[in-house]
C-alpha cells in the first residue's frame, strides 16, 4: 500500500516537474500547465501523506457517539 502510494506520488511529482520545465521552455501553454497541476497537486499531496503515514489498523465502523 505505502510502496504503491510512493510510486503514485513520484509519478505525480515527475509529471508536474516535466510540465514546469516544458512551460519554462515555452512549449506548453499556461492553461495546459495549470490543468496538469490542478490534476496532479491533490494526487501528490495524498500520495505523499499515504506514503509516510503510520502502519494502518483494521477498518471498523464509523464513530457513532461516546
Amino acid at each position, binding site marked *: 500500500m505505502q510502496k504503491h502510494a510512493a510510486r503514485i506520488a513520484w509519478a505525480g511529482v515527475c509529471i508536474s516537474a516535466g510540465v514546469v520545465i516544458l512551460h519554462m521552455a515555452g512549449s506548453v501553454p499556461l492553461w495546459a500547465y495549470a490543468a496538469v497541476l490542478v490534476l496532479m497537486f491533490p494526487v501528490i499531496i495524498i500520495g505523499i501523506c499515504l506514503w509516510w503515514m503510520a502502519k494502518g489498523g483494521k477498518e471498523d*465502523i*464509523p464513530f*457513532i*457517539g461516546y
Partner: protein
Amino acid sequence: MSNLAGIPYYVLEFGDELVYFTPYTITLFLLALTFTIFVLVSRPERQVDIAFGGDAYTTKEITISEMRFRRFMAIACGLASMGAMVTGDIFNFTLFTAMVGITNVGIVAAVKSPHVQNAAFQYGLVALTATVPLFGGAAVYAAATGSLSMIELAKGTLPAVPFVAKAFLVLGVIGEGMAPFYAAKAEMFRAPGAPYVIMCSLSSLLIFLRVIEVVMLG
C-alpha cells in the same frame, strides 16, 4: 459586457444549437463529469443509524435493484446537468433543466423512508410547477428577441431581453433545482446512498450557476 465569462473556446454545432465552452462552463462541466464518474464507479455507503438512548446501532443496506435504479437516475441527472452546462441555446437549456428536476425526484423516489418520500413529493410538486415559468421565460426570450442562441444574444445586436423573461427563467431554475428553498432538499438528503443524493445537490447548484451566466447575456 459581451465578453462575459470568457470567449467561447470551442464551438460544437448541432444545427441551430451550438454547444460552446468558456472557462466558466468548462469548470462546471468538468465538475459534473467528475461526480458522474464517481456515481458510475462507487458503491453506496451503508448508513449507520443509532438507537438513541442505547448503544445499539444498525446499518441500512441498499438492495441491488434499488441501487441500480438510483444509479441510473443519478447518471441521467449528471448527463442532464452536463448538457445544461455546455448548451448554447435557451430552449435547450430549459429542457435540460427540466430533466434535472425530474431525475432529482427519481433519485430519491426509490428510497423506502416515508419521510424522504414526503419531501420528494413536495419537491416534485414544485419542480412540476416550475416548468411553467421556465418554458414561459424561454418563450418570452424568443418572442422579444427573435432568437434563442446565447451567442447571438451575447453579441448585443438583438433587442434587449425583457426583465420578465430573465425573472421567469431564474424562477424556473430555482423551482427545478430548489436553490434557496432547501428545506425539502435537506430532508431528501437524509436518504442513504451518498453518491446518488450528492448528484441532486450538485445538479441544482450547477444549473443555478449556469442560469446566472445566461441571464447576464443580452
